């Protein structure tokens, strides 16, 4: 089979996410422009860092005059979750050449992770699945960079755009990803515990509460799963495939 249909299917499956990412990118561009970054610095941050929530937080830190150490440490902690994504998808990159692993790692965002992980859960690991991954990732990247540019340009024309609440698009996107995953008790427990701990720890500095919440949720899911081992196959469709 040729690679082309996989790539195109990846592009197609990324379309719903574009509806959520474009407003988020526009609002980033607006805030970055207002916050004192030049057009190329704002677009460059989207192009080279490519991490939405970290970019937002850093823009506000820069506005508050934070030092370089605080900004880089915050980037580290806010993006720690990507180590978990890297670990989750690592079995799927076994056997891929180095240049593929470099490129797919650079493009490993929340949204790309969510679509690609779901693809592997449903279809298992097929020889050309990385072309699907490439289709998803390149589409979302192009959308993020171009919508950041639009935000910088339009931000000057509509300076109050930052207060429109476009960031809700990210919440709706993540809700659309998570809710269909809540198919069994351990997944529901992971969500409830992660949400509760996130609220209890929201005032922790540098978004450290996010990691506390993530690990609490993972632990809750694991504990519940271990108490009902007979249902494991049902929960891991990717692992029962040959």
């Amino acid at each position, binding site marked *: 089979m040729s690679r082309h249909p996989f790539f195109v299917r990846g592009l197609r499956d990324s379309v719903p996410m574009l509806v959520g990412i474009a407003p988020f990118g526009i609002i980033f561009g607006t805030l970055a422009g207002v916050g004192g970054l030049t057009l190329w610095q704002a677009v460059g941050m989207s192009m080279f860092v490519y991490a939405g929530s970290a970019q937002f937080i850093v823009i506000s830190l820069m506005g508050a005059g934070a030092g370089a150490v605080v900004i880089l440490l915050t980037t580290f902690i806010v*993006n720690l979750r990507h180590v978990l994504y890297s670990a989750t998808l690592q079995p799927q990159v076994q056997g891929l050449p180095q240049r593929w692993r470099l490129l*797919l790692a650079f493009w490993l965002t929340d949204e790309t992770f969510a679509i690609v992980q779901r693809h592997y859960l449903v279809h298992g690991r097929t020889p050309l699945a990385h072309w699907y991954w490439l289709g998803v990732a390149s589409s979302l990247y192009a959308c993020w960079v171009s919508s950041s540019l639009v935000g910088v340009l339009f931000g000057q024309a509509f300076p109050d755009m930052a207060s429109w609440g476009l960031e809700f698009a*990210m919440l709706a996107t993540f809700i659309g990803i998570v809710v269909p995953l809540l198919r069994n008790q351990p997944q529901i427990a992971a969500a409830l515990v992660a949400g509760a701990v996130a609220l209890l720890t929201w005032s922790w500095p540098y978004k450290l509460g996010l990691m506390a919440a993530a690990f609490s949720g993972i632990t809750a899911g694991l504990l519940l799963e271990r108490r009902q081992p007979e249902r494991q196959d049902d929960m891991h469709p990717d692992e029962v495939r040959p």
Partner: protein
Amino acid sequence: MTYWWLIMGMAAITFLMRYSLFAWPNLRFSPLVRQGLHYVPTAVLTAIVVPGMLLPDGAHWQLSLYNAYLLAGIVSIGIAAMSRNLLATIGGGLLVFFLLRWAMGQM
């Protein structure tokens, strides 16, 4: 110029974390770790969404009927549970969100 150095520093840190485990493609995780990784999307994304709905500005609790993030978030959860369709959830959620903001005079 300093901003460019910061951007490159952020880019390096972010990339290294994303690449971290891809650097060892032959590493095998223990069964416990593999099981735990199944809860990563749920736990991480929920931990971002829930405070986003209840503390939309990142600093103040807004347990109120005038919080469009909370109300539209609950509607989005309903749409997602019933439709299991990403586009319907994002599109419908955004529509409800902006209608609420408009109705409450927050636009």
